[in-house]
């Protein structure tokens, strides 16, 4: 069985891939048709983007997703704020919070996390990002040099787990100075969240191996993934570990394959083909990864289909990674099953618009997966349920 997550965007959403306009949230001017905030009687209606995020979380929860990833970038809203505000509006849904060790010290991160575990009944999951260095890192006020980043991540995770108890914990580290830190018993009793670890380089594996529950990657052509997984397995084996893999996959699924490609065609009209062929279209990371696999000149969407159903042009139609699966419900489900055979243990799926597509993928694709574990399990620790026991049950770690 695999855990299947959805994504809750932290930078607005488009109503479709047909036009690259984010009318959900306030990253575009609020006008007729805007949602959260919208217009009412000539002024803003008082709703905020968080209200739309709440709708996406509820849609994904009822549709069978176990939780949602909340990404974090300089231009986005913050995942901790959203997760802390929304846990009590959902029942079993897990919030996967993306963050970098440079943002908080490990003891403070443990206190925040344990409190969120306590009030949510154990529904916090980490997406630990080490950060790539460069201008984005100095933007965040994080001066740690690139080569030290994984060392810092390792020290952070060691200290976070060390402080997560009632016994005083000390660490005279390179990055953190911890003396006699501990959690009160009610917080120490909470489970440490599962860790989805971004990064799978040798340095990442050496650091994360003892802590990561999953290595999280973006979808790429399947052979590239096979190669990456094999390398991680080999390197982990020398450290005596067996890695697990999670994959972030964009999906565009319709009743028939023709309908799915027709949907892409409608958005294709706005794509600057000259820029695509000069490899500068879309955001730079997505464009670079895409061009590493797309052969020959690009004229139609299918020119970016690097293997059946694997399309490398999503970055041209919305912000984010390049690769995703395009096809009929049955085709997309079959390819996801294939990815499980390659070694994927958990998915983070996403599609634009996130709200409506959560319902669609939940009702049309998830039921076609033999490996799908349903999201709603009637969590006994739900804090607002009158029947809930006083001590919330932790989420199962390393569930298979």
């Amino acid at each position: 069985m695999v855990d299947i997550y959805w994504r809750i965007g932290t930078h607005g959403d488009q109503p479709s891939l047909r036009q690259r306009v984010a009318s959900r949230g306030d990253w575009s001017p609020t006008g007729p048709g805007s949602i959260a905030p919208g217009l009412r009687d000539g002024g803003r209606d008082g709703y905020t983007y968080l209200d739309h995020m709440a709708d996406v979380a509820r849609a994904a929860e009822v549709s069978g997703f176990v939780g949602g990833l909340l990404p974090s970038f300089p231009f986005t809203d913050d995942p901790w704020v959203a997760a802390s505000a929304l846990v009590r509006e959902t029942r079993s849904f897990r919030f996967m919070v993306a963050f970098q060790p440079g943002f908080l010290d490990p003891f403070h991160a443990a206190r925040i996390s344990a409190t969120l575990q306590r009030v949510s009944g154990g529904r916090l999951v980490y997406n630990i990002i080490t950060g790539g260095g460069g201008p984005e890192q100095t933007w965040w006020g994080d001066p740690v040099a690139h080569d030290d980043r994984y060392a810092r991540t390792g020290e952070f995770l060691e200290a976070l787990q060390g402080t997560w108890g009632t016994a005083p914990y000390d660490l005279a580290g390179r990055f953190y100075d911890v003396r006699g830190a501990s959690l009160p018993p009610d917080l120490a009793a909470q489970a440490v969240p599962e860790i989805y670890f971004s990064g799978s380089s040798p340095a990442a594996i050496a650091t994360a191996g003892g802590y990561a529950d999953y290595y999280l990657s973006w979808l790429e052509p399947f052979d590239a993934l096979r190669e990456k997984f094999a390398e991680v397995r080999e390197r982990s084996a020398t450290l005596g570990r067996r890695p697990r893999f999670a994959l972030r996959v964009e999906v565009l699924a319709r009743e028939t394959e023709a309908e799915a490609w027709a949907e892409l065609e409608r958005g294709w009209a706005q794509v600057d083909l000259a820029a695509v062929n000069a490899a500068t279209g879309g955001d730079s990371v997505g464009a670079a990864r895409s061009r590493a696999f797309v052969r020959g000149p690009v004229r139609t969407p299918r020119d970016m289909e690097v293997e059946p159903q694997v399309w490398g042009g999503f970055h041209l139609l919305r912000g984010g990674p390049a690769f995703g699966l395009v096809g009929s419900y049955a085709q997309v489900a079959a390819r996801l099953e294939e990815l499980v055979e390659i070694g994927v243990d958990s998915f983070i799926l996403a599609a634009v618009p996130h709200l409506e597509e959560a319902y669609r993928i939940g009702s049309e694709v998830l039921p076609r997966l033999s490996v799908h574990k349903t999201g709603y399990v009637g969590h006994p620790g739900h804090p607002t349920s009158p029947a809930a026991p006083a001590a919330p049950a932790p989420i199962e770690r390393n569930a298979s």
Partner: protein
Amino acid sequence: MSHPAPRFLVPLATRDERSWPGFDIAEQRAQALRAAELGGFAGVVAADDLGGDEASVVAYDALRASRWLEVVQELPISRGNPVYAAKQAASAQRFFDGRLGWQLVVDEPGPSQTTPPARTRAERYARATEFLTVARGVWHDTEFTFEGRYHQVVGGGFREALADLPFPRLHLTGSSDEALALSARFADVHLFDDLDTALAHGPALRAAAGDRPLEIGVALRVVAREHRPEVPRTIDPRTALVGTYDELAERLAELVAAGITTYLLDAHPRIEETYRIAEHLLPRVRDLTPAGGAR
């Protein structure tokens, strides 16, 4: 001399105070929060309590569950990065109509800190100055660069939907020279621990802030009763307001006239006493402070 209308805040519980079977502490907070909201209080404070729940989780949940309350989050600056703290605050201001406040925890050794650690009071206040300089810098500029001992930023600054938001109303505490100097420069509200200190230091601190409006506040326990025989006699009057509704209203009106305009009122049990203060004490204060009324 006229003063702003007084603002009344109450703390939120960070530890289980009632042991309700089948309900956890979040439910206690939710009910106390509604009492403060319906009772017309100006705000609530989520304390940094190492023996209890963490303040940011408490604060964001409280903001989501209220419409009017300012939610003041106590922020331990030793344990975080000012850019990230400001970024979280920007989302909170967007989501909750600008109702987030900050109260910095500056002068404590703390069980953990990012390096380099600040071991003396002078170092801690130097770090606080850097923290606020950076937090305000990325908030208001789009090309912010800062090279300090504790914090460094290159090319920082919030853009698009994260720009042009109200900075969290800044509460600072303490009575040391360093604390008062930091407040004179940065604070919107300086919250003292007891009345004598507030009355002794408040006027000079407001003068030191110059043209910048700086409110003086005090944290107090409150025991208010309708009739004199109901009032307990065993409580220290320097850190507590103890008396009948009429007595306390008169005392508060005097304090407002003396320039103390923010009150963090701690009364137990929280929910019931919040209702009591809202119904009996605040209306009397409002009648006695013509400046615009209590809220």
